[in-house]
């Protein structure tokens, strides 16, 4: 059979198109895509475009009120209490006004009472998280569905780039095995192992079954949790009503925790 150059090219291109087409059809009906139909989220799960918090520390009056929020979080997430302060692991903690808002601490006129209070700090779940940009393994990532900055412990290689990147100190490294420092284990939730970074995950495991984050539940209204993109949500109403500031907004990570620093009932 003789074939000129033109016929050969026609035949070759036609058979390539048929081959590639068949391969893509076969792969779409094989295992991979059937998996999607077998897996779905819990219908009870709370949904939002971008989760956020409004923290009003004027509602926390005693030391006990702070500890209640901190313990609620640390107990259910098996956060170790390491005796060595240099190896401290924390998901939520308290600190002074001038450490929380270093760039406004020189203001001597504003709400003095508030400046003497402690603030509750945890991961800001930033809209543009610096930690996610630097993670070399995508162990920390921003969930497309609801904006939570997640930490996949299975992938973390412990390089600590994210700790250097986070402007809020929200991340802790397990320098030692955390297991011996967990007093009471919550058997429903995993611990971490030596050599991984951990942080607040906005209680993604509780949201998935329709519960509020543990700190918000225990805070007597000092921490309000809701959808920042929904103009009718409670968090948006609070932000509209009261005077709120965010930590270090000038860095441009767009934190999702708003701290009420005034306004009261008359504002």
């Amino acid at each position, binding site marked *: 059979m003789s074939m000129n150059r033109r016929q050969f090219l026609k035949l070759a291109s036609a058979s390539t198109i048929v081959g590639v087409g068949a391969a893509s059809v076969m792969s779409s009906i094989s295992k991979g895509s059937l*998996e999607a139909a077998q*897996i779905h989220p819990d219908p009870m*799960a709370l949904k939002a475009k971008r989760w956020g918090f409004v923290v009003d520390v004027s509602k926390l009056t005693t030391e006990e009120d702070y500890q209640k929020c901190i313990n609620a979080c640390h107990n259910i997430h*098996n956060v170790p209490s390491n005796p060595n302060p240099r190896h401290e692991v924390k998901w939520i903690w308290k600190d002074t006004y001038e450490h929380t808002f270093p760039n406004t601490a020189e203001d001597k006129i504003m709400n003095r009472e508030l400046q003497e209070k402690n603030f509750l700090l945890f991961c800001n779940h930033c809209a543009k998280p610096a930690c996610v940009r630097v993670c070399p393994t995508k162990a920390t990532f921003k*969930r497309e569905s*609801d904006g939570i900055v997640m930490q*996949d412990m299975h992938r973390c290689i412990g390089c600590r780039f994210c700790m250097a990147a986070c402007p809020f100190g929200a991340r802790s490294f397990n320098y030692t095995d955390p297991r011996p420092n967990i007093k009471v*284990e919550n058997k429903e939730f*995993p611990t971490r192992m030596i050599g991984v970074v951990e942080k607040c995950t906005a209680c993604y495991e509780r949201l998935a079954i329709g519960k509020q984050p543990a700190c918000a539940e225990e805070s007597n209204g000092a921490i309000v949790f809701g959808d920042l993109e929904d103009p009718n949500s409670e968090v948006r109403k609070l932000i509209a009503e009261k005077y709120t500031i965010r930590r270090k907004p000038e860095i441009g990570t767009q934190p999702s925790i708003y701290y009420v620093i005034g306004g009261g009932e008359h504002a």
Partner: protein
Amino acid sequence: MYNSGKIIAGLVVFFFLATLPFLLNFGKANAKIEPSIDTPEINAMPKKHCVEPKAFMRSEHMQLLNNWRDQVVRNGNRIYVGSDGNEYTISLQNTCMKCHSNKKKFCDKCHNYMAVKPYCWGCHIAPKEKEA
């Protein structure tokens, strides 16, 4: 050949020692590895079943678990629909190990035999050992 007596005797001894493990186990049946499903939780089930049939779980549980992990942690999908149509919560600690509450006689049995060391238990808390 110099010292042939010593060399040949040495070779015989060496050959005997080198093949000793084979000689000792010669003709014996290989120890059968049977992970135990004898736990109170499984025994209480009217019809014993896992999330997928036994043969699938035996050969594919590692892929299933990897898939589950990625779906929960990265995509937030927590419900798995098994091939029997039942829905299961995706969780190693709260679903798998609730029934298989005998890690030492179930997971470890094969893993030790095959000398594989999955790092599940570095973070996930193993259940208290139970057996019926």
